[in-house]
């Protein structure tokens, strides 16, 4: 990559010069181009798969699963349904990406293009493989759409490039920590729109009418997906009923995770996360029951206050006396809950106050394209 190809000012110039042509395309043409690109991304060749696996730290099998489920949702029909009746006002979107979840780049990069808005994405210099792959796939599917999409890779300390990136944007989308969102907010002018998606985690609930065996199979998929590194990943699962039911569920969940590990092995774990895992498991063993292998663990901590896990397939199971006390049971974690997975009779409205995204167990990590993650329509801010 030449220096100019990584300079936000040059990238803005390029994508803005492509903007008239992008807007001149019909929404059907844009949707078809994006769907074509996503179909290709959902079936990566071996080289791309290996590259993305290495850059993300996920196993190749997990990477394949992530690409299939993420980009498989971007069908032409789903894209057209999403954009129907909406009119974009933004003239350019800066998408500041996070490296923690492989496919998190998809929505912030592709949906502005669907709405006819050029986009420059900022990727971590350590993990920019997928953003570049998305840009290339869109270009291959439709050069006019691809010309309105660019990726800059630079580190979080590069204030000059960040300012240049933000200066060209009418709307800014930030994925990352609360601190990252706040840092960007400080740099924006009043007229610029910010859509920040900060800290968060997922919580699971097994209602009294759910079969614990089926619930354990479903939640095991939610825990294993992306190695539990995303903000929709369940860190704690509450089981309605008594301690014995929670213990039975925990044991079954552990067994289900063992089966999934054969099909979708866990990837690499960085050193500090391994240290956190050691501490988390120690607390679980000290105050409850711990089922653990090297690559996954389930604790059962009964009525203890909830605590977040370090991720990487470590999940806590807790007793929930009644769904009526679910909100109180979440305690300090309540403000971080972005996704609630439910096993049993799902009454989404009843749970809507607890999390912006409510899903059936097993579907927490595969939200439909129209899902209002963070409580926002996917096209908000455009």
């Amino acid at each position, binding site marked *: 990559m030449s220096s100019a190809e990584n300079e936000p000012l040059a990238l803005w110039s390029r994508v803005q010069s492509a903007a008239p042509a992008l807007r001149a395309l019909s929404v059907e043409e844009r949707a078809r181009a994006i769907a074509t690109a996503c179909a290709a991304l959902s079936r990566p060749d071996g080289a791309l798969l290996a590259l993305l696996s290495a850059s993300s730290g996920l196993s190749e099998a997990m990477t394949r699963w992530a690409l299939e489920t993420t980009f498989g949702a971007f069908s032409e029909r789903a894209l057209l349904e999403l954009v129907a009746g909406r009119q974009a006002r933004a003239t350019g979107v800066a998408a500041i990406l996070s490296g923690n979840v492989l496919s998190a780049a998809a929505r912030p990069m592709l949906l502005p293009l669907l709405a006819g808005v050029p986009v420059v994405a900022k990727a971590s210099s350590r993990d920019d493989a997928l953003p570049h792959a998305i840009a290339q796939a869109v270009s291959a599917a439709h050069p006019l759409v691809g010309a309105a999409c660019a990726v800059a890779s630079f580190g979080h300390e590069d204030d000059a490039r960040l300012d240049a990136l933000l200066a060209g944007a009418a709307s800014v989308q930030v994925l990352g920590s609360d601190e990252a969102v706040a840092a960007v907010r400080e740099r924006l002018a009043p007229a610029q729109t910010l859509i920040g998606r900060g800290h968060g985690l997922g919580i699971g609930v097994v209602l009294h009418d759910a079969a614990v065996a089926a619930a354990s199979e479903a939640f095991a998929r939610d825990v294993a997906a992306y190695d539990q590194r995303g903000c929709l990943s369940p860190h704690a699962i509450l089981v309605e009923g008594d301690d014995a039911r929670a213990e039975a569920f925990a044991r079954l969940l552990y067994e289900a995770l063992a089966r999934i590990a054969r099909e979708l092995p866990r990837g690499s774990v*960085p050193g500090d996360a391994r240290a956190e895992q050691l501490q988390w498991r120690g*607390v679980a063993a000290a105050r409850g029951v711990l089922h653990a292998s090297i690559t996954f663990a389930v604790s059962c901590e009964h009525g203890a206050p909830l605590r977040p896990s370090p991720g990487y397939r470590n999940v806590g199971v807790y007793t929930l006396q009644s769904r009526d006390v679910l909100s109180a049971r979440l305690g300090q974690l309540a403000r971080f809950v972005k996704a609630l997975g439910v096993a049993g009779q799902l009454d989404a409205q009843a749970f809507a106050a607890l999390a912006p995204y409510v899903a059936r167990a097993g579907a927490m990590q595969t939200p439909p394209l129209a899902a209002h993650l963070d409580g926002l329509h996917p096209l908000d801010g455009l």
Partner: protein
Amino acid sequence: MSERELLAAEITALIERLAGGARDDTARDALLARVLRYQRARVAPYARIVTHSGLGDGDPLSWPGVPTDVFRFVRVASHDAARDVRVFRTSGTTQAQRGEHALRDLSLYDAGARAWAKRMLFPDVERMRLLVLAPSAAELPDSSLSYMIDRFAPWFGKGASVAIWHDGGLDLALLEATLRDAERTGEAVALLGTSFAFVHADDGLGAARFALPAGSRVMQTGGFKGKSREVAPDEMRSMLSARYGVSEEQIIAEYGMTELCSQLYERMNPRRLLAPGWVRVTLVDPETLQPVRPGEEGLVRIDDLANLDTVSAIQTSDRGVPVEDGIVVLGRAPGAVPRGCSIAVDAVLAGERA
């Protein structure tokens, strides 16, 4: 004599025998194995950890360590709370998230802290004037560091310690006056304090420089915890040497933890931490918990015989590398790997950690 009294007497005797720096790892490990067995029988959370691990018996390393976070969530003690004579707490923003080390008897703490400080900090003097850049135990009664430094006064101090830190801050005028007095009289002094207090002092003293008398020394300890700008160990040593006119060999870092009764001190050439003979320090792989090979990085595990009434085997989150006669601690690396939106919510909730 109860089993506890017997073990306490044997530990005290071992501390006295090894106070001068001698080692007897065979005796230490044999006693550790007995102590861990005693603790498994009396400390319920430790019994659960041992049961879960499927380990125990034999060599101390075959016993699992208690991760330090456990002290934040459950009581780890062989006695009930009514018998506590002191509860040391990790720093933190809320009571619920602070680790607690509950002691029913401070005699082993005192014996170990005194013996190893004598060997590592004050081997050449009986007493000297102490200047303290840390809160006193009266001001911060649940700080193990404040307790230890307070105890230094009767053990090693000449007269009362000079409290440079009081009422929540540094008294820089008192510090400067005391140091000028030392220059004038030629009487060596020891400055004892936290790393961030020394940084604040350095920021506040401006152009003032001191040429402290020969034999003066500095003990600095702890991290920065967001309380001051961060200074790398080598830079800290140079900064202190330049500011106070003390040779770098006389600037000694201390490594202590709320969950431990004993301390490690730094020696130079090469820089490493040395543990007393009644403490076993091992670098372990965070997943297998087996010792790493020489030169490899691992997590610091410390087995401290002086922790008789809680649990001796402590598993920290500090990274380190083993060297021939000690360890080099590399610190913690939270946030070194990008976590994005899932960044440890625990860190947000826990606030500052000890």
